[in-house]
């Protein structure tokens, strides 16, 4: 089968597709098309025929249907497909709300020490005192940076941390005879996980409108508060890239109404080492170690989302948690072994592999370096805003932004170019697009987060590109945008087709034909 560039495609013609593609921009067949069942890339000792089987009737009779690659084939396969990915190491990744900062390699080296990577969660606690101490040290950093006195380390990602914090709020209400509270206030600009988490726990979500200036209307919060409100989920700095100026007043009002303040800490990078959320009156806040503290995003995880807790919520932290008696550290793992708590959010003790990376990052930066990094992140975002605001409309541009700058699509109006088209054209210029169409509160949103990892030189190049793109859109060169990307490994993909008749697994060509 040939595509319309005259190149062979892989589905029907395996042999041709293996050689397909230019050497530096490969296309690569699937492992199922190049691997075979007869070989293996792993050598194992022969089985001892004298040892009997205890599998009984449970032994597998059917085929699994898994191909194998030998090591040289595997290296080539994965190196080739890796080259089809954009990455922070390869270029600027201004993805708003994702904090795509540099991932130091010392972190990776430390996570692979045998005393970290080769320890089991259920080996005797006396043999893993260093691991529990590492958790204790990371907890100390998180509590000091946030001005809180408790932290639950267990959540496995930001959304899991939200779950943890909101469960603690629910547990606290129930313990205080306030179990009837069934409403959670969520500003419209919130990340989708916030309403999803609240709904998951059975809460009714009440949206709170934003003010003209992109921040939460303290009066709207006060009006919405009553004896049925369990809490508010507020992101600060918010998803429009703005610090909520009335956050203390909001916290006071929420507490006065007997509710709790959940803060989404996704944007902690803007304020770490500078402002402590505990001083703002938060009751719970998750910290994405994979954003703020540089653990790698890994193409979509794993993450880690420890949650700091106020004194009021600390007793409801989930299992397990660390306890120190003199030199001896203990992880409390079961109900009845400590105070009240909300139970277990997952098996074992959380994301040690992420903890060690985050602690390495923190110790490398120190308090002075973290504060400088936050200021640099904010400075970089404001520099982009200053240099682009004449061509891109910053709807809340009359105030400084925090670590990310939000533009809308109003200056694209009438050009025939959408935010999506502009984003895809950025790919042809060598950039990963910014976050698009989020937050939902502005039209055609473009959310740009440069992080502290980008140099002035990189920012200037980016500014030049973004200016040139907008000027070209206005000049009517629409096709450059609507046809983009042209220089990526693939052209635009048909997402509607993927969703309408989902193909989620490779099938042998003959099986596939039979199904069609």
């Amino acid at each position, binding site marked *: 089968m040939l595509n319309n560039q005259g190149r062979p495609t892989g589905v029907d013609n395996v042999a041709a597709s293996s050689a397909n593609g230019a050497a530096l921009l490969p296309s690569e067949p699937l492992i199922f098309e190049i691997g075979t069942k007869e070989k293996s890339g792993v050598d194992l000792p022969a089985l001892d025929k004298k040892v009997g089987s205890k599998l009984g009737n449970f032994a597998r009779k059917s085929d699994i249907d898994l191909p194998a690659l030998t090591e040289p084939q595997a290296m080539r396969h994965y190196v080739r497909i890796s080259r089809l990915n954009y990455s922070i190491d390869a270029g600027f990744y201004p993805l708003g709300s994702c904090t795509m900062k540099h991932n130091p390699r010392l972190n990776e080296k430390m996570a692979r020490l045998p005393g970290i990577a080769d320890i089991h969660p259920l080996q005797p606690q006396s*043999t893993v005192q260093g691991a529990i101490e590492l958790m204790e040290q990371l907890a100390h950093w998180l509590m000091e940076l946030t001005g809180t006195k408790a932290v639950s380390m267990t959540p496995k990602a930001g959304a899991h941390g939200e779950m943890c914090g909101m469960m603690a709020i629910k547990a606290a209400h129930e313990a205080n005879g306030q179990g009837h509270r069934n409403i959670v206030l969520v500003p419209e600009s919130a990340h989708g996980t916030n309403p999803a988490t609240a709904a998951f726990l059975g809460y009714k979500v009440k949206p709170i409108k934003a003010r003209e200036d992109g921040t939460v209307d303290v009066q709207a919060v006060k009006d919405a508060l009553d004896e049925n409100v369990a809490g508010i989920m507020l992101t600060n700095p918010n998803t429009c890239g703005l610090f909520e100026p009335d956050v203390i007043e909001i916290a006071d009002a929420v507490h006065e109404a007997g509710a709790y303040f959940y803060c989404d800490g996704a944007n902690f990078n803007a304020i770490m080492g500078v402002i402590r959320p505990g001083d703002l009156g938060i009751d719970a806040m998750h910290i994405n170690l994979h954003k703020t503290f540089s653990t790698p995003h890994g193409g979509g995880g794993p993450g880690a989302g420890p949650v700091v807790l106020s004194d009021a919520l600390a007793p409801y932290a989930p299992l397990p948690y660390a306890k120190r008696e003199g030199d001896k550290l203990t992880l409390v793992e079961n109900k009845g072994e400590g105070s009240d708590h909300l*139970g277990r959010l997952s*098996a074992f003790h959380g994301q040690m592999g992420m903890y060690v990376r985050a602690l390495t990052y923190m110790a490398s930066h120190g308090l002075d370096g973290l504060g400088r990094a936050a200021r640099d992140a904010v400075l970089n975002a404001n*520099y982009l805003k200053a240099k682009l605001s004449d061509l891109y409309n910053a709807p809340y541009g009359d105030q400084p932004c925090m670590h990310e700058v939000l533009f809308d699509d109003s200056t694209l109006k009438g050009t025939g170019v959408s935010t999506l088209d502009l984003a895809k054209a950025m790919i042809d210029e060598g950039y990963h697009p910014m976050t698009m169409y989020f937050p939902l509160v502005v039209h055609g949103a473009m959310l740009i987060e440069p992080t502290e990892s980008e140099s002035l030189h990189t920012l200037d190049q980016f500014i030049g590109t973004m200016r040139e793109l907008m000027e070209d859109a206005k000049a009517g060169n629409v096709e450059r945008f609507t046809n983009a990307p042209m220089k990526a490994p693939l052209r635009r*993909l048909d997402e509607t087709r*993927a969703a309408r008749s989902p193909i989620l697994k490779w099938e042998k060509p003959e099986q596939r034909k039979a199904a069609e």
Partner: protein
Amino acid sequence: MRYLPNSDQDRQVMRDAIGIKSDDELFVRVPKKVFDTAKPDLPDHQPEFAVEAHIRQLAAKNRAGGDGPFFVGAGAYRHHVPASVDHLIQRSEFLTAYTPYQPEISQGTLQMLFEFQTQVANLTGMEVANASLYDGSTAAMEAVLMARRLKKRDGVVVSGGLHPQYRDTIATYLGKDPAFKCMQADPQAQEDIIAQIDDSTACVVVQSPDFYGNLRDLRPIADAAHEKGALLIAVFTEVVSLGAIESPGAQGADIVVGEGQSIGNPLTFGGPYVGLMATHPNLVRQMPGRVCGETVDAEGERGFVLTLSTREQHIRRDKATSNICTNSGLCALAFSIHMSLLGEKGIEHLALLNHQQAVKTAEAVGAIDGVEVLNDHFFNEFTVKLPKAAAPIVEALADKNVLAGVPVSRLEPGKKELENLLVIAATELTSDADIEALASALKEVI
């Protein structure tokens, strides 16, 4: 600061362009009383070698698996990970990429996920799998919620052979729901779970190999569940077992979930791991987590995208199937690479080797006076009944540098009848000398 590229001069250029004198002016909307007023008790920045020395010192206080005989399992297993796996997952293009929301420049991650989904589906005997979840325990919890959505029923019956921390995880999410029934701890696989299934049951949750190592016959449970209109959720914590035993799909499971750590991922004290989930195509729209699907680009070339996103929180907000936003991408990659190296022959051979070392261990330990192996059939893990409490024995053996396994009482405290039980696991890394060391040390301490 080695990680911050801008000089003071660069910063001044930016301040001038913005029109500010000091960075503090950018924080003008922050209430004065909280801006830069606290003095956290934290040290300043350090050179790379000083940080490395500090972390090494912490790591050195831990007894690593490779430091001596090691028989700890119960949900996480010590297997060999080929060097090429760890090398490949550290490639910048995989390690430092975000979730593949821009498919044109993320085909590496997306193709890998499509391959991963196919491997997981084939291994579990199902037709579709998602792109991974946090770990096995949260996958089990998500499967229960998925079954309840599908069946619009509340009843959940959990086997007494399910990993106790998986059970506790589900319990945390279901709260004090009276429709949630947990069977008694069941070390010898004697429970009659079928009797618990009725017209209000949404799902039955059964693990095989179970927490105590028993292989469970899922087929009769699946048939009984289906007869009442309920779903069977099959759970595993040792994915290598699927190389040797009949797949849950072939035994009638509707949703299969489990822990994928054993393939490609080190122990790392419990995380990050990789949750696997597979099901039938007609149930996929209630499946949580990301899914990668095949499509074509504007020129008709095959390509892959994240799809079925109308189930997800960023589109559906408070109506999403789950609040999950992250999968376990890099761990899924490690799994997929390791599985590609193994292939059909390799996973089968690896599984049988694990089984063989476990059989040898059971024979050696079972030959000790007063030690009884409880399992008739098992894979690479089994339970023994000791003449006295298991926890102090495990401590005493640790003092002799033998990590003998997991005392059941650590996960099921306060249950007298479980106090003497010890769960012992062996893998391909368990040597015959390790087995001898365990047997002779155990003989000494009991």
